[in-house]
Structure formats: C-alpha cells, structure tokens
C-alpha cells in the first residue's frame, strides 16, 4: 500500500471544511500567533491548494504541518465534522515521502527512533535499561554537575535536560501474563496494552490499571512483550511503519478472544482505535482490525461502561484532597473521552475535583512537539501550569505519559514540584488499596501507600 497523498485523498474530506472559523478559538497555535496560516482552516486551505495543484509541496508547507500540535481541539470545535486528523496525517506522510524537510541529522534521528527503537520492543527496553543505569549510577548527576552536557550539541543538550526518569521495574516485572480477580469470579476478559513510554517510565500506572480491572471482576491478560502501537509513526508521517506495527499487533493479539482491549494512554488509544480504518483495504487484516477497533477502550471509558465499584467514601470527615484534571488532547479530542475520567475522580473518597481553565488545551507535549517546536511548547507549558496552579489543587490528574512528563517538568520549573501528578487510575487503585488495608487492619489505621504495587500469583 503506497503512502497517502493529498491529491489522491477523497476530495470531499477537504471540502467538508466550509471555513466558517468556528475552530479558530480552540487552536493553540492560532492563539499564539494570530495568523490564519497557523489555524486549522488555514492549514486545510493550504492542503486544498495542494490538492488543487495551486501550491507546490514547499518547505514552508512542510514546516506548517509540523508547527501544528495535532491536538485535534479543532475537531471537537468543528460543527461540520471535518476529519482534520486524517488530513494532517496525510499531509505529514506526503511531506515525509517527498523528503521536503530532510537533513542528515533529522533523517538519522527519525530512523533511529521510529524505524529501529520503536519497532523492536526488546531493544527499546534494553535502551531504557541503559538510560536507567546512566541515571541510577549517578552518572547523569555527575555529567550535569561537571557540565559535561555542555559538550553535547545544543539540540541534544536541550533534550538531555528533558530526559525522564526510567523505572527500575518495567511492566513485565510488575504484571503477570494472566491475573484473575481475588474472589475468583471472572465477569469479563480484557487485555491491557502497556505502551512504550508508559512501560519504561510509568510502569506503576500499568500495574494500577491491572489492579482496578481486577477489582472490577475482569480477568486481565497482559502480554509481557508488546509492540509499539504505531501512533508515533502515524502522527509523524511514517505511514508505512504505522501499518507494519498495526499488523504486528494484530498478529500477536486476537481481539476476538477478549471483551475489551484496554489502553491507558490518551495518545496511543487515539491511534489504536483507528486500526479498522487504517487496515480497511488489507484483505488479510481488515476483519481482525475492525474487531480490534470495536473492542478498543480507554480504561476510564471501560470502567464507567461496566459500572465500576466506587471505593467507600470513608466515615470520618477527614481533610479533603483537591484534585484537578488535565485532559490529554488525544483522550478528549481524539477519543472524545472527557466525562469518564472526571466521573472516576469524583467517586474517590475525600477528593474534591477542581475544574481548571482550559483543561482541554494542549500542554505543549504533543508527542515529540516539545523537541521539534520548543518555543511554542514551553509557552503552552507555562500557560498550562499557571491555570493548574490557579485551581489550588495539590494533585493534577492526567492520563497520558507525554502530558504527565510535560506538566511535571513545568511544575518543577515554576514551583519546585509542589503538585503531584497522577493518572486517575493510580488514584483509584490507591483508594481500593486503602480500603483493603483498613479492613485488614482491625485498628482501623490506614496505610496511605502511594503505589500499591504487588505482583499477584
């Protein structure tokens, strides 16, 4: 299958935009510059000009496609239902196949990450392990202290400071391939996708995901080695590898065998849902992919759908914890899951949910945007942290590893990490854990554990 092109795209997708401008107030890059070119309808106008043959594929066009966050806020704002996600992915794929922005450094980095690391799960974990060693042996601290990082080229030096902390244990060390509810009653069978970033940097979120599923009567299957879902590739114009990875995923996991396939990362879920569309023309995979898309659920969506058990509210009126919720773009705009995470947070004991201004605005992470467009990314980061702090909350709940890191970094810079960042599912798992601890402990004393990590038999 050849990479998609704007010219060969169904013209009605482009025509769907009637340039009414309703998208403008939702677009962060338009807010940043006030230029139509940096707005959804402006970008669609450029794409349409390309499709019409009025505009050539210029570096400026390519840069514009890369300046877009791909946050999809415009798709929530658009009454006409324009499929901006497909348009952007098509335009970016065309930019890559025509090699408009190519430089040897860019090519090498894209090859190393997208073609090598993120197509080989074991190699990716090995790289993660090396990075972990660099961090725990004190090498990183030493290197930073001795300013050895100054020897690095500027682009690498800036990324070095953003390097997230790697977990000692990855998901496969925390989660058994199959786990059953404690009471032995299995009401549903689900499969949990552990992701790439989530696996290396937030494996406890995967553990918590399994814990809350077990608490709600699900038998949980978690393959110890999983392929990247390909969202990184699809969102960044590498259509071919995205297809390859979707097929590998379907080779390894049979969607017909489960009631649901669970994703807990907004960015991955948004892409995973579209396997059906992605492989619609592939006669070998189409049926399986359609079933996959039908079964794919975000964890919050699934918990609300099956009527999750709210943890007990607790008898004593102890101090409440203020929590605010930052919506991952690809969860709320990409997957239209916005109500359910809040429902879960509201169900937590002693939690007061504080709504944040622009809760559904991008934080600037946007996949690899903080690496490709650092200025706009950090402007969005500051704006986001300002709004989060204004809520007076102690905890920021968010459900995507990119947002998690971006907000954590932003808060560390602006107020020295005075807020905790947590996935809603981690908070729910903690509440279930506290409940168990208090029933087991006759004295009624609670064991507030940050991460209830236990490898079940």
């Amino acid at each position, binding site marked *: 299958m050849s990479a998609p092109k704007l010219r060969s795209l169904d*013209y*009605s997708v482009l*025509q*769907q935009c*009637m*340039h*009414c*401008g*309703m998208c*403008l*107030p939702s677009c962060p890059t338009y807010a940043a510059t*006030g*230029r*139509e*070119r940096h*707005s959804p*309808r*402006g*970008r669609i*106008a*450029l794409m349409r*000009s390309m499709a019409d043959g*009025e*505009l050539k594929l*210029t570096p*400026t*066009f390519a840069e*514009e496609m890369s300046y877009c966050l791909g946050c999809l806020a415009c798709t929530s704002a*658009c*009454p*006409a*239902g324009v499929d901006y996600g497909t348009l952007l992915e098509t335009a970016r794929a065309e930019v890559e196949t025509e090699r408009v922005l190519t430089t040897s450094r860019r090519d090498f980095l894209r090859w190393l990450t997208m073609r090598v690391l993120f197509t080989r799960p074991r190699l990716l974990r090995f790289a993660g392990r090396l990075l972990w060693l660099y961090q725990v042996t004190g090498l990183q601290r030493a290197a930073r202290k001795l300013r050895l990082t100054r020897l690095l080229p500027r682009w690498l030096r800036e990324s070095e400071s953003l390097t997230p902390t790697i977990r000692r244990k990855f998901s496969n060390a925390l989660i058994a391939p199959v786990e059953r509810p404690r009471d032995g009653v299995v009401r549903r069978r689900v499969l949990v996708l552990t992701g790439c970033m989530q696996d290396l940097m937030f494996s406890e979120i995967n553990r918590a995901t399994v814990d809350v599923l077990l608490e709600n009567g699900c038998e949980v299957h978690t393959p110890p080695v999983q392929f990247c879902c390909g969202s990184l590739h699809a969102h960044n114009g590498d259509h071919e590898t995205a297809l390859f990875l979707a097929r590998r995923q379907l080779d390894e996991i049979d969607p017909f065998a489960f009631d649901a396939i669970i994703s807990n990362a907004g960015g991955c879920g948004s892409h995973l849902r579209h396997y059906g569309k992605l492989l619609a023309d592939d006669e070998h995979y189409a049926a399986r992919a359609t079933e996959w898309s039908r079964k794919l659920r975000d964890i919050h969506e699934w918990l609300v759908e099956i009527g999750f058990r709210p943890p007990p509210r607790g008898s004593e009126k102890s101090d409440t914890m203020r929590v605010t919720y930052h919506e991952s773009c690809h969860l709320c705009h990409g997957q239209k899951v916005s109500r359910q995470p809040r429902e879960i947070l509201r169900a937590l004991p002693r939690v007061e949910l504080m709504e944040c201004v622009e809760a559904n605005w991008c934080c600037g992470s946007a996949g690899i945007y903080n690496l490709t467009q650092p200025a706009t990314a950090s402007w969005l980061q500051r704006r986001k942290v300002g709004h989060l702090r204004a809520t007076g909350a102690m905890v920021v709940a968010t459900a995507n590893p990119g947002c998690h890191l971006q907000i954590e970094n932003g808060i560390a810079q602006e107020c020295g990490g005075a807020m905790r960042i947590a996935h809603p599912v981690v908070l729910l798992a903690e509440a279930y854990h506290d409940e168990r601890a208090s029933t087991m402990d006759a004295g009624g004393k609670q064991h507030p554990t940050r991460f209830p990590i236990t490898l079940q038999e």
Partner: protein
Amino acid sequence: MIERLKAIVGAEHVLTQQEDLIPYAFDGTAALKQMPAAVVFPGNTTEVAAILKLARERRVPVVARGSGTGLSGGSVPVPDALVLGLGRMSRIIEIDTKNLTLRAEAGVVTQTIFDEADRVGLFYPPDPGSMKISTIGGNVAENSGGLRGLKYGVTRDYVIGLEVVLADGTVCWLGGKCVKDVAGYNLRDLFVGSEGTLGVITQVLLKLLPKPAARQTLLATFDAMDAAAETVSAIIAAKIIPCTLEFLDRRTICCVEAFAKVGLPVSAEALLLIETDGHPLAVAEEAAQIETLCRKHGATNVRRAADAAEAQQLATARRSAFSALARLKPTTILEDATVPRSELARMVRFIAEVGQRHRLDIATFGHFGDGNLHPTFLTNERDAEEMHRVEAAMKEIFEEALRLGGTITGEHGVGLAKRAFLRGQLGEGSYALLRTVKQALDPDGLLNPGKIFE
C-alpha cells in the same frame, strides 16, 4: 510598497509569501476565493492611517478584515488588494460603569466584550453566531444581528461612538457618551454596516445594559412546521417579546444534534428555542404563558432548561446550526432573506416549494421572532448544473421576500453575495444616493471595491 509597509508596522507584521496569503483568500462565505497581494497587521490607528495614505498614493485597494467569519464575502480580497488585518488591535480601552459604556479597539473578539461587561454586572446583547471569534470591528462594519435581535435589536443599537480612518488617512471620532447628542449629521450610523467601503473602523464605543436578573430557556417541539409558525405569531400577539425566538427545521435539528449532543428531539418536524429574560417574577410569568401558548398551538413537548449551563448549551448548539449543516453536502450556502414577522409562515412554505421545484436540498432555520430566516442550500460547488439551479432558486426567494415587504439580507450584509439584488430592493433613487455617498467618501474607489455595488 512592501518595504514602506514594513517600515510602518514592522517587517514581522507584513505577509507576502504564498503560503501565508492563501488562508486570507476567503472568509466564512461559501465558494468565494481571491488571493490578496499582501496582508498587513497594523498595531494602532496611526499605523492604519499611514497605510491608507500609502495605499491611496499607490492606488492599491484595501480590504479590512477582522476574523474573517463574514457570510456575504465582505472581507474576501479583490484582485491585487492589500488585506488590512485588525486582529492586533485587541485592547479594551475602558469600561465606564458610571455611564454604562465600553470602549474597545476594532480587533477585540465579541465574546470578550460580552465577558468583560458581564464581569461588572453589565450586558452587551448582540450575539452573532460567530461571536466566539468574530471581532467587534467586523460586527460594526457588517451591523451584525444575532439570536437576541427580537428584544434587544442589533449591533447598530449599541454603537454610540466610533473612530474611523477615512480613505485619505484622516482620523475621525463620531458620536460619544451622551445619550442625547444632535450636533451635526449622524454620521456614526453611516459607518455602521458600511462593510469597509467608506472607511476603516478602528475603535468603537458601545452602550451596555444592566444584566437581566433572571432568564429561562424553553424548547418546544412540533410535528408540523405551520404549528411552530402559528405559535410564534400567537406569542407576539399576546404582547410577549422573548429575547430569543429561534426556529430549526428537521434537517437542521438532526445535524445540530449530531454535533452538539444536547438531546434535541431528532424526530421533530420543527423546534422553537425560546428565551425570556428580565425580572425573576416577569420571567416566571412569561415562561408559563409561553409554555401554555406552545401547547395550545400544537407543541408535542415543551422542555425547560434546568439551569444556566443547560440554557447556554442549547444556545451554543443553535449557534452551530449553519456549520453543522455542512455535514450533509460538500457546499453549504447560507442566505438570510428576511420578511415582516406576519409573513413568516408564507415565506417558509415558499422556500419549501422552491426547493422542491428546483430539486434542491434546502434546510431552514433562523430567528423566527424577528422574521430573519436562514434558508441554507446543501449543494456541491463542483456541480455546475446544480449550482445553476441554486442561483435560480435563490433569485426567486429574494424576489418573494421583497414582494412580501422584506429584505434580501437581514444581518449578513450585501458584500459580494447579494450585490446583484440590491438595486432591485432599493430602487433607482435610493441606490443612486448610496453611490453618491460612496463617491464622496472614497473618490478613488479603493476601500473594499466591488462590494455592495456591482
């Protein structure tokens, strides 16, 4: 020319590259497109004046633009035009709570005006469908309407002063804070609705009202279009003036619901969205009366919004109607033929009949309370034969509106879209008078040329 522009506003505020210009070749109007020569963003009135002087010297046409959401092609460039983007001029200069006025630069977004007034307990009523992004300068230049027109009037009714830059670069202030002021001709109103053809509006002084203490929104469902129209007549005849009285037909209901998901009855033939506001007791009484009248005239269901949030949701859903209709066909052409309220039912029937006769898909919604209809053609601009039928049908609708004592445009302006019909509505004498005014103020014909006049 470009170098001189850069010297006036700074190089970063002048766009000339093809990729930068393409997104300024259109506004919110369907099927109109024209590349400009350049786009310039002045930061203040002095810069606007300098640009207009330069343009006059070089005989370059100038098209003023706010957010480009207009629906008559008012801010679509003309060939070789300089687009004057006023988005940078977005300061609210003053809110005067003693005189209940607000002074703002032309590029302030309408929603911001509403919010700022709201913050101090005041109310700016005009609420065009695009208010979340349209600019106040654009609203004044087009004399925009909105959902609250029935009770509160339109933009013109709130403009008590404005600053305008004339074609030769002269800066004029017209009007002021006095409620009564009869010094000289009332030229302020000449510029309200002038569509950028007489001067460039750079500042506006707006009148504000005290915020109504209470409001109640009702949603009435009908299984026949006529029943809805009769209900509207009955409400007006009962001497009730709700602030909003909106109508949606079945196709519009379905499209809006598909987008907004606010629980609209998708099997209904017609729907009235009604809002009453004012003193709490008066609101309660009016709401009860309206509900009774709706039921008496065949409403199958009347739902009351539970709270302000639900009312807001319903109004927002209604504002998305035009764009939501774009879900059905590639091209959506929105018209705003308007008739006296008494002729509404007849006009609605006529539109349905024209649609059938020309084999066209027309959805209708609009501000029923003030007679402002939005027949919307769902078509495809790439189908030349069908577009021909659309033009024929449109002409018939305009002619019928005029025959019933109405107008070719209630709130979108003439622009490019309606200019062929203006002479027919105004008659020779009035049309010539408009031309005289245009020639007096813009003798070189450089301000938004080709708009309003053929």
